[in-house]
């Protein structure tokens, strides 16, 4: 051990003293940012600009808030400063070292925070450097980037000054908030009043930021100077009492007469505990209440200054800013009231007084919470009264004000519950008070995580916060006995775990109770998908899946026909493709819904023309259209999506209608008619195509969802975009969605495999065993009713197991029983 220099030894000591705060702020701040980034990335996948630098500024700001107080007040309270004064080291040297360490550590915190931001951006966004919007905002004002460092240095110096001036660390910290608020208000008023001055000479934005920076810089210098003077006064030898005191006779009194209250009768224990709590904390409580009352009063008054006149009104400080400020004030109250609950008794082991006298921990616990809760209620009442009295709630009625008051109370109470728990967990009073805002931030982020990702009901968060209150109650005896062992911290950890798990329980319960798919159906779908994948044509399917709505009742054939007629050139072109064996494949590039509409329109028109005048040309055209549709359907069966399959079945129904027409044999000719009817009656081939399309839709969606778990909430099931009950990207939601998909696939699979003769019995058996579907029409059949009745037209398998399939088979039997003559085979 070589002898260090004084500066080296002092600097080493100061850095060791602030190390817990330094690492706590960086650790908790980093954790908070990590949590928020994860949450935002999950909620907004691929979103740019997710990692905001503002959330990283929190760390140096919090550190600046605590560093001054930690460097000085803790030493004063532990009396180590007194020991240091006993050493041959000057007061200037002590104060200089503390100032220097505060500055250097603050710079280090800034550097590490920005480094963390840079690393997080690289890891989570693959982005280095500054983003364009940030660059743009920086170019708006050169002063903007130095505003926050200036504010942080102000906080650091003001914290040091208050710590030198005030004996208690908590009081110093408590005073720092109104002092900072005072400087902020002065800054804003100065900005406001000098707006006309710089508006003509400077860019208004730059000028405003410049004034802000200048104001905070002046505050920073003033705080540093005042802190220096306060330190020298504090470290100097105590001066004797003023000689004039002896004139008043005070100093000559060697004994003091017993005060009047000594003659009081003994008081009940509860009253004594409340009296002790009030007597001990009256100063910080009074300060908090005064700051809050004045702050809320200002929130009400300032927006009214000058009304809404452009020249005079503080438009930047409108009622929304006032509401925000009031909420911040409430948070401030909750923060300090919560931090003071246990830590004021922790100072110098005051709580041992109660422990040594066997006072019930429950009684002490209640007496610590009683008055702070009353203060919170009084603050809420003042908030409510102020809202009504100052009438800045333009357009808000009394119910809104009541709701606002309740929300305000619950928010302040939540922060209070967190901070009181944290203040018992951390034996160091100051460290717990400084880091409380970070803990509150982490809990808020976690609460959002539980709300969004696990669909937690918001009242469960209240239960969690209540559990933290129960936690401090359960650990009260250990805390009173100062038994800071593994049981104490383990107990708190267990309560914390419980508080964190409880909001997740409904989501976990949902996940555990979400039924999976029938394994047999899963295997069958997998097998079908594998067998058919060799002839897969995903290219076509992917182009087909864009359809939003299927053919519907509202879009009559006439309207569709009219649309095509409006552009005769295109219609003629498409018609040529339909009739041509070589060019027909071009039509497969169209959206299947458009193709169906086009085919139906052309079929309808051609049939009408034949019905009015069955000339050879018209019959030939009619036959070529029918044949073209038939060929299209065949190609659809071989390829395309589930939706394309359904659309092709609409064309099959249309062809069946044509085949059932009384003049069908005449217009179509026997060969074409028989070919089509045989094709339509071949339900095995159709079912095979359906099964493959269904399995592919199911498998593709499952694969896509697995690969893009949180990145895409579109639900592409074989070309269908289906509405699901889950609207937010939560864990149970994702699982529920998967199960809904599996359920849909399973039901459709059962429907295909049902042996029932018609869709009504199939529906009743496979889809709707409870009979909740009232009526089944020919048009909107079976699976149209799955999940919801509102979007009947956009569900897969709308025509599966429809009557038309039975009719096709019956028609084939009819044809077989009445074979045509050879003359009829070619028709006309």
């Amino acid at each position, binding site marked *: 051990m070589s002898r260090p220099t004084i500066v*080296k030894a002092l600097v080493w000591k100061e850095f060791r003293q602030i190390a817990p705060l330094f690492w706590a702020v960086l650790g908790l701040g980093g954790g908070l940012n990590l949590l928020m980034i994860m949450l935002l990335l999950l909620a907004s996948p691929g979103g740019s600009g997710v990692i905001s630098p503002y959330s990283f500024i929190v760390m140096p700001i919090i550190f600046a808030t605590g560093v001054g107080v930690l460097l000085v007040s803790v030493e004063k309270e532990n009396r*180590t400063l007194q020991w240091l004064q006993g050493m041959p080291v000057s007061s200037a040297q002590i104060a200089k070292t503390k100032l220097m360490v505060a500055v250097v550590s603050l710079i280090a915190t800034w550097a590490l925070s920005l480094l963390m931001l840079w690393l997080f951006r690289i890891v989570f966004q693959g982005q280095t450097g500054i983003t364009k919007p940030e660059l743009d905002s920086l170019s708006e004002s050169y002063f903007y980037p130095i505003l926050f460092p200036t504010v942080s240095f102000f906080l650091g110096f003001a914290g040091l000054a208050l710590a030198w001036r005030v004996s208690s660390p908590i009081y110093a910290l408590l005073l720092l908030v109104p002092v900072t608020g005072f400087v902020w208000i002065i800054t804003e008023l100065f900005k406001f009043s000098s707006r006309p001055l710089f508006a003509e000479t400077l860019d208004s934005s730059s000028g405003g930021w410049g004034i802000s920076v200048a104001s905070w810089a002046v505050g920073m210098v003033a705080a540093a100077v005042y802190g220096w003077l306060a330190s020298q006064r504090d470290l100097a030898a105590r001066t004797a*009492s003023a000689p004039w005191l002896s004139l008043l006779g005070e*100093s000559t009194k*060697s004994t003091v007469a017993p005060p009047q209250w000594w003659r009081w009768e003994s008081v009940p224990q509860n009253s004594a505990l409340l009296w002790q709590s009030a007597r001990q904390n009256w100063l910080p409580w009074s300060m908090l209440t005064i700051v809050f009352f004045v702050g809320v009063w200002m929130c009400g008054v300032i927006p009214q200054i000058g009304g809404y006149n452009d020249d005079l009104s503080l438009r930047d400080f409108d009622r929304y800013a006032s509401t925000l400020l009031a909420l911040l004030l409430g948070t401030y109250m909750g923060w300090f009231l919560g931090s003071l609950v246990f830590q004021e008794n922790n100072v110098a082991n005051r709580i041992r007084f109660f422990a040594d006298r066997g006072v019930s921990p429950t009684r002490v616990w209640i007496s610590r919470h009683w008055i702070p809760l009353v203060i919170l209620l009084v603050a809420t009442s003042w908030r409510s009264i102020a809202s009504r009295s100052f009438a800045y709630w333009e357009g808000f009625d009394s119910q809104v004000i009541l709701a606002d008051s309740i929300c305000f109370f619950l928010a302040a109470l939540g922060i209070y519950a967190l901070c009181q728990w944290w203040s018992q967990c951390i034996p160091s009073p100051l460290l717990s008070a400084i880091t409380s805002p970070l803990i509150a931030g982490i809990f808020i982020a976690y609460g959002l995580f539980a709300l969004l990702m696990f669909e937690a009901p918001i009242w469960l968060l209240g239960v969690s916060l209540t559990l933290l209150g129960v936690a401090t109650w359960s650990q009260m005896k250990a805390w009173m006995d100062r038994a800071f062992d593994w049981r104490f911290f383990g107990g708190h950890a267990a309560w914390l775990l419980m508080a964190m798990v409880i909001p997740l329980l409904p989501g976990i319960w949902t996940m555990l109770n979400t039924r999976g798919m029938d394994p047999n159906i899963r295997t069958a779908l997998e097998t079908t998908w594998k067998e058919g994948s060799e002839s897969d044509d995903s290219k076509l399917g992917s182009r087909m899946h864009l359809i939003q709505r299927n053919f519907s009742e509202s879009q009559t054939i006439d309207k569709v026909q009219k649309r095509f007629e409006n552009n005769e050139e295109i219609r003629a072109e498409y018609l040529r493709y339909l009739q041509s064996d070589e060019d027909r494949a071009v039509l497969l590039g169209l959206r299947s819904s458009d193709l169906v509409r086009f085919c139906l329109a052309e079929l309808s028109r051609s049939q009408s023309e034949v019905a009015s005048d069955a000339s050879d040309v018209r019959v030939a055209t009619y036959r070529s259209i029918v044949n073209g549709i038939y060929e299209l359907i065949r190609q659809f069966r071989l390829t395309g999506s589930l939706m394309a399959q359904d659309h092709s079945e609409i064309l099959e129904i249309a062809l069946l209608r044509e085949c059932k027409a009384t003049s069908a044999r005449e217009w179509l000719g026997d060969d074409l008619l028989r070919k089509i009817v045989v094709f339509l009656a071949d339900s095995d081939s159709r079912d095979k195509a359906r099964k493959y399309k269904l399995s592919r839709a199911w498998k593709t969606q499952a694969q896509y969802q697995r690969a893009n778990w949180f990145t895409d909430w579109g639900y592409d099931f074989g070309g269908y975009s289906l509405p699901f009950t889950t609207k937010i990207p939560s864990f149970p939601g994702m699982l529920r969605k998967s199960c809904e998909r599996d359920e849909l696939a399973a039901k459709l699979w059962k429907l295909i495999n049902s042996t029932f003769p018609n869709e009504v019995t199939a529906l009743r058996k496979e889809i709707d065993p409870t009979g909740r579907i009232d009526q089944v029409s020919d048009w909107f059949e079976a699976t149209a009713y799955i999940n919801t009745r509102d979007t009947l037209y956009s569900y897969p398998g709308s025509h599966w197991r429809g009557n038309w399939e039975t009719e096709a088979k019956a028609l084939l039997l009819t044809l077989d029983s009445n074979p045509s003559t050879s003359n009829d085979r070619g028709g006309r």
Partner: protein
Amino acid sequence: MNDVIKIEGLEMRFRGCEALRGVDLSVQPGTVYALLGENGAGKTTMIRILTGFQKPTAGTCRVLDMDPSKKEDSLKIRQRIGYVSDSPALYDWMTVGEIGWFASSFFAEGFVDRYRASIEQYELPSDRKIKNLSKGQRSKVALSLALAHDPELLVLDEPTSGLDPLVRREFLESMITVAATGRTVFLSSHQIAEVERVADQIAILHKGRLQLVGNLSELKESISMVTVSLTDPLVSLPDPSASSKILAEINEGRQKQFVVQGGGDEAAEFWKNCTGVASVRIQPATLEELFVACTRGDSKYAHRKSESGNAGRLSMEAQRS
């Protein structure tokens, strides 16, 4: 040789009380000087003034020929003295070794070696944090820190508080060794028996006034305890001759005990001849009896003493006589 500590007319007033009321004191080099007094007597206030933590209301004070109330002098004084407060507050997050290394920066070379030897002597683990030490061990660390720079003057406020008897004995013996090397020890204590063993000079402080000051052995020789048994408790005894100074009177039923400085035999003989006196017994007074007499005895004598000047002057006169 100049006095190591020289105090004249020292007064200290706080709001609501007078801690020191015109104290005069001088400490010779190479002595072990014990300041005795009950709680609240003003011992710690006096030590804080000596070490420059407090500025007195009135009076002068010089330590090692410097004025501790002056800022520049107070730093020099702290370089040359070793000070242990009544409840030393150390950086509890430092280890025993670290705090020695840290404190060595304030003093000349050799501090670390002496500190290491001291903690080895006290069997203190150098790698243990101070917060994990017992109260006695902390006191040993504080003493080691105060002694490690080989100070000319040791100022110790209740130094043996919290130490076990063995270490207390070792420590007090080491104070004699320190004094033997020409250094001065100024300590305040409640441990009268132990102070009696090591102190050369004592001062008894009571309610801000020095009641008794002097060389311990001479005081013990000159002060005797005279016990007078009365036939009637209401009998009042006249004061003896001027050569006998009654420091205190303790009444216990038919017995009256007098602490008499100088001429104890004459006083006993004088009371033996008074009416209503059954018997008179005389014995040498212990320091504890002196202390009790000075702090608990009849206040009329204390009042009388204060009227006649201050205790220091009184004791010097007694010594001369």
